[in-house]
């Protein structure tokens, strides 16, 4: 398999792409939403580089997971905080690793409980090609095919690093 990419250069490239993407669509008042925990770190980094004055929120999707019955709640669910009005807003939804697409499904459901955004742009650092739902990233750092039984995890917040682990379930 290929080596895991360095996070720093990926972030730079994503920030450039995202700036262009927002310009092309004439979105000048976006709001950032990071998904706990890794997505928040990536969102904070992009926020700094792309639009430091834009509002920034965080989402913990534990209450919206579709495997709650199998796995229950995690020990600690952090509160979701969206310190802005979602209605009519252009949202930039950020996660670290896009895998099955189920986290993004849950995040979209949660966002819509707060209001009706004008648009949602999905940004992820890595795409592990193992999709189970029709979800794709608008801005993507890198794609990676993982051997079976392996998971990739982002550790941080500083330094931000990708590591390979055995899957827990």
């Amino acid at each position, binding site marked *: 398999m290929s080596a895991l990419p360095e996070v720093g250069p990926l972030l730079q490239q994503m920030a450039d792409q995202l700036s262009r993407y927002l310009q092309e669509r004439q979105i000048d008042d976006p709001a950032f939403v990071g998904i706990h925990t890794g997505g928040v770190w990536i969102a904070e980094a992009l926020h700094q580089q792309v639009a430091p004055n834009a509002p920034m929120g965080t989402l913990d999707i534990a*209450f*919206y997971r579709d495997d709650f*019955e199998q796995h*229950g709640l995690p*020990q600690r669910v952090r509160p979701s905080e969206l310190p802005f009005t979602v209605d009519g807003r252009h949202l930039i939804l950020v996660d670290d690793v896009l895998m099955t697409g189920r986290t993004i499904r849950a995040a979209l459901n949660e966002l819509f409980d*707060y209001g009706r955004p004008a648009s949602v742009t999905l940004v992820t650092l890595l795409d592990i090609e193992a999709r189970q739902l029709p979800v794709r990233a608008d801005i993507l750092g890198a794609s990676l095919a993982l051997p079976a039984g392996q998971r990739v995890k982002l550790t941080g917040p500083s330094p931000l690093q990708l590591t390979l682990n055995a899957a827990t379930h």
Partner: protein
Amino acid sequence: MTQMPQHLQLNHQGQLRHFLTIEGLSRELLTELLDTADSFLEVGERAVKKVPLLRGKTVCNVFFENSTRTRTTFELAAKRLSADVLNLNISTSSTSKGETLYDTLQNLEAMAADMFVVRHGDSGAAHFIAEHVCPDVAVINAGDGNHAHPTQAMLDMLTIRRHRGDFEKLSVAIVGDILHSRVARSNMQALKTLGCPDIRVIAPRTLLPDGIEQYGVRVFNDLRVGLRDVDVVIMLRLQRERMQSGLLPSEGEFYRLYGLTRETLALAKPDALVMHPGPINRGVEIESEVADGPQSVILKQVTYGIAVRMAVMSMAMTGQTSQRQHTQEAN
């Protein structure tokens, strides 16, 4: 009847599957419950106060005894978890036609209920239901006789933790009719389990149960001695019907000796919390100025009660589901 094996409440992995009593539950589990409730508090502040955890599940509130606050907060908690809710006020329904508790619940189970929230006048009723009537349904005790009221105790613990923090440094006084109070029993057990070093009960001798010392509490008959330097005062409701049984001389006498007034509250720490499970009797056990005063968190308790009940329901539903899957795999 009120003695119960602790494993009845837990599944094969030690997760909660019924919530019947605080007795026998570990400090870790109670802390997990409080942490989960903390997370749910934020949901109550959203525009859409709902999360989809119990979508498609049916929760039956089965109340054999009247209650407004407890039933409505359980109902709200279930609805905020997206469950469907049935409210059954049994005292005015089939039992008056002669149906037994067993038959009533069998019928509800046949309607594919996933959870029963039970309030009953007899101690041990929720336990009986969990053990003998509906093994696959999660049973939550919403108060049984003078035995236990575990969700009230946990909402009291959440209130104390959010306003005062670490239980290991606190003095907590419980004042009033301890003898008949399921709230007092559950609170003493919860405080003990969470490591509170100084639990005081303050009551006249006639309103204290035998063997109260087994709970690891200090007993005071004089309010003015017992309240000294406490961090938290939990007042209990004086049930007027007790007066008739000759345990108390009169309401006025009780208020003079055990009522929480501005004067008696001044004996506690200056910022001591004032709590009460409700409904309060103004001028019977608590002075209006104290109930509405700056140290009172009585209405906060109601808000926290919803989050605690959301936590209990989602944890018990997970525990019950995973127990069922485990049993199916074993067969």
